Structures are given as structure tokens and as C-alpha cells.
């Protein structure tokens, strides 16, 4: 850890004023402090945003509004969330541990960094941490890495679970800077690594996430978040699938699908959604439809199983969401 300035902001405008290139906002600190201890993140100023009024979980104008400083645990347990979007609650409850969820914020969750072990080890090269230094994961240990949206510069997954649910539900993030507010679909908030893996999202320097807005979905009750991992709890996903399905007399009317653990960002599966519409909700339909999920997939030496696992995970999630066997 390096020496840094510490400042506390009590209003959003204070926070924006205190921000400068090289500064970092501190929410729950479960990513930031962890990575500062490892010298992976080396902000020269840390701005505590815990006192900012970015709280509240409300249903307004047909959308669920979640303040960026709401804690993961509080969001997961909130009755509006569990009734309007149980998938969000489930994705959160399958994330991290109870202790972490009590500290970690929704804004911080969306901004968490990849779990690539090379990224976390400053003695190794890493294009995301040190642009241009190389990507040891391409030829090194890469069982947990991405197969979709990868580039020759970086193959790291985006690790958030709830972001996958948000992307499936077409959530938007509200961003505030000294230039005012803007709203960006979460799916577009994240960038693909391309040749600049160090730029993970469209957030400007010193810009704050203030809120996540999730449109309601009348059929969101028929949804699930499935997380597949080696350990039953307290681990990031090998694959995860957020699925919501609308059925009429056993026929798929509409469906939402997004995957985690496989993409360099939360991965919406539009082609699979299209292939499912109009089909009879049964395992055969689902397994026929999932082929396109892995279009363009680039498996690596140790994660060659991920395309197959992803397809199987989608089928399983659809069976759960549709309540069919």
C-alpha cells in the first residue's frame, strides 16, 4: 500500500469537487482496499463516499431504483426487490459472503475489478494493470478466464454477479459528473477489452454512479439466477445465467438471458433469446436454442469446457425459470 490523501465527502457535489485524476471513491472498500493492499490500485487520494445520500430502494415510474450506496445485503433482503425482481436478490445472495455483502455497495459491485490472478499479482505482467506489459493469462493458468468478448490483449472475466442480472433486465446506470447526469444502459456501460483492457467502462474520471434503474417486467417472477462453481459458496462463477421467461400455454412468449463467468463483460444472449421465442418450453427446445450462445467463443487451454458448461447452464436455468422438467 502507498501513502495517500484521505477525504470525506458529505454531498455529491463535494465528492465530485474532491475527485481528480488518480483519486478513487471509497464505498465499502472490499475491492478498493483489497487491491490497494496488493499495490494493484494506487490512488493518491481516497474519497470516502459512504455519507453521500445515494441510498434508497424504490419503485417509481415502472422501474426499480436502487441507490449506488445501498449495501448488497440490504438490496438482497429488500421486500420490493424480492417481489419485483427476485433474480436480483438471488444473484446478490450467491455473491461473496454475508460479511462482504454487509459492507459492499451496489455502485462498488458494478465497479469491482476482475479476479484474474495475474491482475492481482504486481510481480507479473498484465495489460489491464500495466498497459502494454503483456497478458500472461493467454498462455498461463486460465481455467477461470473468459471465452467471449476476449482479445489478444486480455481474456479476463467481469466478476460481478448482480451485473449479469441487471444486464438481463436491461438496467441502466445513472452517472453524475460536474457536467450533470447521464443515463447509460449497463450493457453499454462496460467496454470490451480490445487493445485497451485498462479501460473497463465508460465512466469518466471523477464521475460517480448514483443509481441503478431496473425496468419492471411483468413476468419477472419466472426468473432465476444460476451460478455454477466448484465450491458451493463463496466463490466467483465458472458460469452463471440470469434467466427470465414468459410462457403462455407452455409456449415461450418472451425471454431474457445473460451470462456471467464467460465474458469480458456481462454477456447478454440475444440470439438465444430469439431462438427460444415461440418454442414449446421443454428441455429439447432449450438445448436446441443454446448453440448460438457460444458463437465467436475463443476457449483457452484450461477453459475449453466453458462453451459446453455455458450451454448446459443455460438449459438448466431455463428449466428452473420455466418450472418445467
Amino acid at each position, binding site marked *: 500500500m502507498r501513502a495517500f490523501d484521505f477525504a470525506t465527502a458529505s454531498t455529491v457535489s463535494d465528492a465530485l469537487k474532491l475527485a481528480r485524476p488518480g483519486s478513487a471513491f471509497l464505498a465499502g472498500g472490499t475491492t478498493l482496499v483489497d487491491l490497494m493492499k496488493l499495490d494493484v490500485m494506487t490512488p493518491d487520494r481516497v474519497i470516502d463516499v459512504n455519507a453521500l445520500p445515494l441510498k434508497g430502494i424504490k419503485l417509481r415510474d415502472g422501474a426499480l431504483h436502487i441507490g449506488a450506496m445501498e449495501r448488497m445485503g440490504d438490496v438482497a433482503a429488500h421486500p420490493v426487490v424480492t417481489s419485483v425482481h427476485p433474480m436480483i436478490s438471488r444473484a446478490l445472495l450467491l455473491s461473496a459472503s454475508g460479511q462482504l455483502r454487509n459492507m459492499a455497495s451496489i455502485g462498488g459491485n458494478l465497479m469491482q475489478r476482475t479476479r484474474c490472478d495475474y491482475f492481482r499479482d504486481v510481480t507479473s505482467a498484465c495489460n489491464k494493470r500495466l498497459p502494454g506489459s503483456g497478458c500472461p493469462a493467454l498462455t498461463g*493458468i486460465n*481455467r477461470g478466464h473468459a471465452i467471449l468478448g476476449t482479445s489478444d490483449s486480455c481474456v479476463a472475466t467481469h466478476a460481478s454477479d448482480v451485473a449479469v442480472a441487471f444486464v438481463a433486465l436491461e438496467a441502466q446506470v445513472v452517472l453524475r459528473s460536474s457536467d450533470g447526469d447521464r443515463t447509460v444502459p449497463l450493457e453499454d456501460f462496460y467496454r470490451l477489452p480490445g487493445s485497451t483492457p485498462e479501460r473497463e467502462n465508460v465512466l469518466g474520471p471523477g464521475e460517480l454512479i448514483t443509481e441503478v434503474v431496473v425496468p419492471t417486467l411483468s413476468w419477472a417472477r419466472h426468473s432465476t439466477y444460476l451460478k455454477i*462453481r466448484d*465450491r*458451493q*459458496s463463496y466463490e466467483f462463477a465458472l458460469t452463471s445465467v440470469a434467466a427470465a421467461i414468459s410462457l403462455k400455454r407452455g409456449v415461450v412468449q418472451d425471454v431474457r438471458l445473460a451470462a456471467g463467468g464467460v465474458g469480458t463483460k456481462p454477456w447478454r444472449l440475444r440470439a438465444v433469446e430469439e431462438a427460444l421465442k415461440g418454442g414449446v418450453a421443454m428441455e429439447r427446445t432449450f438445448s436446441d436454442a443454446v448453440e448460438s450462445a457460444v458463437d465467436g467463443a475463443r476457449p483457452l487451454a484450461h477453459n475449453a*469446457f466453458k462453451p459446453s458448461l455455458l450451454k448446459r447452464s443455460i438449459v438448466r436455468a431455463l428449466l428452473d425459470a420455466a418450472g418445467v422438467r
Partner: protein
Amino acid sequence: MIGHDVDRVDGRIKVTGAAPYAADTKIPGVTYGYLVTSTVGRGQITGMDTAAALASPGVLAVYTPFNPLKLFAYVQEQNDERLPPLQDKEIRFFGQAIGFVVAETWEQARDAAGLITTTYQQQPPITEFPGRTLQKFDEVEEVVGAQTLGDITFTASYTTPFQHHCAMEPHATVATWNNDHLTVYTVSQGALLVQRRLSETLGVDPVKIHVLSPHVGGGFGGKWGNWAQVPLACAASRALGRPVKAVLTREQVFAMAGHRPMTRQTISMTCTADGKLTSIVNDGVTSRGLGGNWSESVANWTLTTYASPNIRVTKTIMPLNLGAATVMRAPGEANGSFALESAMDELAEQLGIDPVEMRLRNYATLVPNTGKPWSSKHLDECYRRGAEEFGWSRRAKQVRATVDGDWLVGTGMATATYGASRGQASIKVRLYPNGTASVSGTAADLGTGQYTVFAILAADELGIPVARVRPELGDSTSPAAANAGGSNSTCTNGPAVQVAARSVQTELITLAVTNPRSPFHGKDPASIVYRDGSVSSGGLTMSFGTLLTTCDVGGVEAIGTSPRLVDPEHGYRSFGAHFCEVRVHRLTGEPRVTRWLSVCDAGTIVNTKAARSQIQGAVVMGIGQALLEATEVDASARFTNANLASYLVPVHADVPRIDVRFLDHPDPLVSGLGAKGIGELGIVGVAGAIANAVHHATGVRVRDLPITLDKLLG
């Protein structure tokens, strides 16, 4: 008192945080040492620029191979590093200690360490196992007759990955000198191991080295050796005239404080059509980290498990540029049993014989490789009782035959055995005027329950409540008792506690008849009886506390020694059988353990509660070995997942209810107490039982640990 559920005597101070662990030691004026480690896997250090670190705030000293603290060569092999740190410029592994920064605060030391730049002449590290053909350093063969062919043959290879102990408490040492006397608070599986090592490497008379290690937060073999922070903290403290505290980071623990080596076993077996083994050959290969000397005799479990007229095992060592491989719970046997227990299951299936029946048909009534009788062996009872309680007879004959919803269900079993022995131990028991007793020896309690074993056995022998006995462990000034390793603590120290507790009764009676203030003064010692904490003679009874008070004596004590067991006539082992149920998801392949039963034959069980916990803990660790744990090494020779988020140990959700039964047949030869070891027995066979259950559930045989879902997707 022996053989019941007794709460741990150290339980309360541990759960309330009052138990002092090494890193908790507070000494006024303490300084902090931080290790600098190599960032390449092999080569020579050509230069280290320490100017910025030395100029950094609070820094007291920076030691490097260019400015080392003198440490003499290690003499005693402790399964740890081959050479003391900083004495040479060769890099043997990634993460090797190459510098030690001492500063007023831990943060200052760490920050200064980050300012040191090191240049290397690099060489490509040797990391591949077992793909590349490497120089064979060593080959051991044990031959019992030549291999003859039976009707049926079977051959397969099994591999296991690197694993780490992951004790909760990281390695920590605090050293302070008073003139030429050293006091060191450190993690350790035996205070005398530390004393001996420090005496060698510091060039100090061992009597001037006082080692304190009263509580240890898990060891599993990883704290048997004395890793770099131990000599460095002590030597720096001597050089600076200030106390020094050094705690390894988790990443450093992974890199330099030992790991379970990678192994491969190729097993060939022949047998008759009715399943009687005619030969077993196990060619074992083990890695050895070039940081150390130690490697596993991974195939040796095959020598003593099943009856066969011909058994041959070999050992080939693959040296790699890694830190020292070291002992980890059931070294050799945890990995060895995975292969043989899988192979027995495979052969049984090939023959259409039930796996339990297969093991009974090859039951070793004599030690297979020596032909000697066992001191005691009730493994057949473990199999039968386990099968009965588990409901083994209802097991489907076919694989992939049982389905519960989306889960494929299978069951598996395996044999557990682990060597038993009794070393020499001395224990002191002291009685106090307030009616309490203390029991002391250099032994260690790593969370095993050794404190409570001391208290129970002394209380039993003295006839007083456990609460009135104060066990004192982890202090090098106590009489020399067993270190915590090789499942040896209770079987070695237990009899010594009994001897000492009996001897102190004799001392008490001597006092009673010789002290002029004693009401028993002048009586014939033979007329005095000690019972339940009191001495009596001719109608007069007095508790030892009252007697000591009456005599105005501060205490009586005795040191009892129980000798090493020397018995060339018998084989000694603990035995057990594991039965488990595993579920595998039909679509996504995750294997989950859902039911467990272990039946153990480990002689006398002193504390059934702690013993059950030992077996349960070992089974949990075995579930990790079977399904989760693997440290990965890439071409740079670093352990890439050297942290507790990426190296997966089981969490509660991975662990089902674990039922444990003890047969409780005292071993008549190991000691009067009759206790054999249980610390390691529980993990032996676990991975095999799980692999067998996974096969039964899915029809897929996984021969490479860990059994992760990608291997089961089909």
C-alpha cells in the same frame, strides 16, 4: 473420564480471543520485519538497490545476500528449507526470501521493501511435471518377491496436484534478546524443533533459547519446519538489540512455507478370477521443491494395505523450481490411498465383485510387506459395521443407476490406515496447595485437543476433576515431549502423562511421611494410599492441597518418562473405513458430497468429542483434496492462485453431516493406555471414497485430482 465427550479446556479462551497466538505477542519497543521475496523462479541475484529503502522513514536495517545476517548451515532435516535465508545469491524458487527489512512499524517495513529493486541473471525455471523427462535424482525400490501374473490384470495412472496447508494462522515469529538469552514466540508444531534449529543456525547454546508456542492456529505439517521468518527475526533482533516481529503474508506462506508435492502413481495389479491379488506394483513419482529436500514416498501405502504375495513400489523424484515441498496431513498416505483405493474399486468393478467384499478378500491379516503380525487390527469390523450402518447392501450394482431429480447419486467407500507408534516423552506433573495440578511438556496443540488430552489423563490418574488440572504446552523449558506430527502426540505423550501423574503420587506420599508437619509423619509409606486427590492411612484422609498447606510446602512434582516403543515383532497402524454418498448434477456436473460415515479403529479414544472433531476435520480436508484443492504453477514458476479466494478449501456448504464411529478396542501393545493415532487417519482414503462414489454416480472415472465439474461434463 477416558473415552467420553469432554469440552476443550482451551475452548473458551480461543473463542473469546484471549488465547495468545505468536503474532499477538506484545513486547515494548518491538520492531517489524518484512520479507522481500524473489520475483523470478530461477537464476542468480546480480544486484539489489536498497538505498531508497534504507532512506525510507522508520527503517532500521535492510538485510540482503549482499549484507546478510550470518546464519550457519542447517544440520537437522526439518522438511523445510535446505539452506538458511540470505546466505547465497542463487534463486531456487519464485517467492524465495532475498531480503529482510526491519522498521519501527509494519507499514514502514512493507513500504520500504517495495522500494528495493533487484536484478537477476535469469534461467528458465523447471516447472513441468511430469510431462518433461527430468533427471532422476533418486530411486527407491522395495521388492517382496517378483511379479507373477494372475488371470486378471489392471493398470492405471493417478495424479494429484500441489496443495497447501492453508492453516488459518499465518506464520509468525517474535524474537527478543536479553544479553545472550533469546526468547522467541513462534508458530510451531514443537518448541524443541525451533530450539534445535535456532541453536544450529544462530550458533547459540540451546539452553539459552527459550521457545514459546502455547497456541497454534492450525499446522497440518506446515509448521513443522522453521521457515525463513524464524531465523531472520531472531538474527535481526540480535543484531539490532530490539525485539523483532515477522509475520508472513498469505502469499508468502503459499510461496515459501511448504506445500504438498505433486504426485503420479502408476498401479499395475494382477489377481485371480475370484479377486485375490497376486501382485501389486506401484510406481510413484513425486515432485521435490528445489528450496528443500523433502519429497513424498507416495507409493508406500501400497506396501502395507492389502495382502498380496508380490508387492513392489518405486519412487522417482522430480525436482522443480519451487519452494520446499513438505509434510502435509498424512504425507504420502493421503495421495497414496487415492490411487490404490481407486484402483481397487476399478478392479472390483472389472471383476463384478462388491468393493467391500473385494477388500475383505484381500484382507491383510499380517503386515503385507514384512509378514509380521499386527499389534491389533479390527479393520474388518470397520468395513462390516460401516457397511451395515451406511446401508451399503442397498447400493445399486450398476453405475449411473440412481437418479434423484436432476442429480445422479452414487456411493463409494475406501480404506483408511495410518502408521502408529510411540516415541519417548517426558512430562512433569506438579501438585499445588490450592488443590490444582499442572501437567507440562513441550508438546504442541495445533487445535487438535492435546491440551485437553493432558488434562483428562492427568485428572483420571490423579482422581480429580479435569477443571483442576492446568495443562501447559508449547514451552521449550518443559520436559521433552512429542512434537505434533505423525499422529504421535496422544500415543506418545499420553502414557508419559500417566507415568508422571503416578510418580507425583509417590512424591506426595514421601512428603507425607517425611515432613514433620504432616499428620502422616513417620508412617510407613506402604501404609499410605493415594486415591481421588487425597492420601489416607489408618482412618485419616487428607486432600493433597490440605496436606501441602499443612506442611507449608509450595508443591510437589515429578517428571515421568515413557520410553520409545521398540518392537521389531509387530506392525502398528490405525485403521478405518469411509463410506460416502456423492451427487453430480446431470447437466452441469458439479460433484457434491451429501452423506458421510467413517468407522475408525484407533485403539483407546481419550476424548471422544475432540477425536470425532479430528476425524471430521480430516474428512473435510479430504473433501477439499478430492474436489477443490490445487495450487497451479505456470511457466514462471509462481503459484498463481496463492490466496484464499483462488485456492479453494471447502466451506460449510460443501460439507455434509459427517458421522464418526470409534470401535474403541485398546491396542494391547502400543502402550498401557492403548491409544493409537487419529490426527491423520481421517484424511486417508477420503479422496478415493469420493472418486469411487463419483464413478458410481456417473460412470466417469476421474484419475486426476481434484475431481472438478469439467471432468464430469462427458
